[in-house]
């Protein structure tokens, strides 16, 4: 009887012990940074749109990532433009360049070397389909964006209410061909990969290492 009792206790304790730990996991998620421009232009134009640190951080907050997390790295995944034209818009191509600016200056961000870029005026222009323009990305401007985003996000475990005075703006400059008019909105959309670290309660062994925060 004693042996049976010991055996039952041994088996029960194996069940109960469970062996959990708070393991460290790394994830990557994508947030967008969107700059909006409302245009009613002919000839040359220049418009600016700014994102503050609070607006940058809000994108991460919207994700409801985890109870605790630390952002480790940000990278620009791709850049897209969305054209959405209203009635009265006659332009079917524009020249445009985009500059990224912050407190320390301005760098080229997107450039098609001054060539005309065809823009959708038909059905696709009406529904606002996003077109990839990552191929026109400038290395220096991309570095500026990454630096600003990193200053706001990386190392933060509490992004709520971030207001460190950091911001960046995107200047959209262009030329509407002679005799044409551009009426509508243009969205410049940066898809940014955010690598973050968080802790989950998991059985021992499931994670690479235990959490220290």
């Amino acid at each position, binding site marked *: 009887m004693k042996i049976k009792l010991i055996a039952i206790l041994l088996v029960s304790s194996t069940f109960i012990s*469970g062996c959990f730990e708070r393991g460290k*996991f790394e994830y*990557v998620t*994508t947030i967008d940074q969107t700059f909006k421009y409302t245009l009613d232009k002919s000839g040359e134009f220049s418009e600016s749109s700014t994102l503050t640190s609070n607006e940058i951080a809000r994108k991460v907050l919207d994700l409801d990532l985890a109870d605790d997390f630390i952002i480790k790295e940000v990278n*620009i995944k791709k850049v897209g433009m969305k054209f959405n034209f209203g009635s009265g818009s006659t332009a079917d191509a524009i020249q445009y360049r985009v500059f990224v600016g912050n407190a320390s200056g301005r760098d080229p961000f997107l450039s098609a070397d001054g060539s005309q870029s065809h823009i959708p005026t038909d059905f696709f222009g009406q529904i606002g389909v996003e077109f990839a323009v990552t191929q026109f990305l400038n290395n220096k401007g991309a570095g500026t964006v990454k630096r600003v985003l990193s200053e706001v996000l990386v190392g933060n475990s509490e992004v709520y209410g971030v207001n460190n005075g950091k911001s960046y703006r995107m200047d959209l400059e262009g030329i509407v061909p002679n005799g044409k008019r551009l009426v509508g909105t243009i969205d410049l959309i940066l898809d940014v990969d955010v690598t973050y670290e*968080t802790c989950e309660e998991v*059985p021992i062994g*499931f*994670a*690479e290492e235990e959490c220290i925060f």
Partner: protein
Amino acid sequence: MKKTLPLLFLLCLSFRVKAQNFDDFLKAYEGQNQISYFQPLSDVLTAGLNSGHVDRMPLDSSFHFTIKLIGNRSYFITDKLRTFEPLDAEGQALGFQVPTIVGPSETVVIENQNGSADTYVPGSGSRFIPLVAPQITIGNFAGTSLSLRFAQYKGKESDDTFRWIGAGVQHNLGRYFLKNTNDFLVFNYAFQKLGMNNYFDFTTQRASIHAGKQAKLYHFYGFLGFQTGKLDADFEYEDSQDLTSQFNISLKNKNKLVGGVGAGLKLSVLIINAEVSLLQPTVVSANVGLSF
């Protein structure tokens, strides 16, 4: 949480992650890269679930009833299941390795010349994959015993119910030609199915031959077999644009051959058994139970 549960159970019954984290896994890849990323799930489940079915062999015809808890640890001795070489949009191999879902917990970032970067999501970084299963074994009838596994978890919603059923039969072939009754040659066949309504189904089968020696207090054996596993997952999740996307994947295990060694003790009603399957992934299986 509803979206979190399906593959969660594939990895570990009690692994809890937030829906957002889980969706980040799902939207990481498309096409062949998605299959390569998730492929080890099928191999790990096939190897892990099939371990521990057999311990004491059905050598005689005396009746016994065993209830036991099987604990498995699946180890990845090499990087074969932990990394894969991704393909570009044209299907060309990119020439570097990135983590699979059970691979290193390190994000791989490939910087492009224009300042953009391609980010390859990390794996779970698991040192090993633990798995626990309750099992009863009934025997012996004409050198044959039957093992059964069953587990059910009811979620908050009706389609969150998770079920795991398994059955195995072991027959002592040695009784027909082996003169020493302590030696054995046993055929084992096991079938298991686990799934969650509307999310995924996993089925696996193993046929194996176990040969060894069994005394009153101890036993040891070697085994060689063939196993198949098939994972079908199909459910909706939110992508990075907050749109509903379909996650649809069908995976078969790559490593069909399985072999290993095992040994154990029978101390009164207590049965302890340990088993190592030596082919990828290496599974260390230990089980403890009561036999009446």
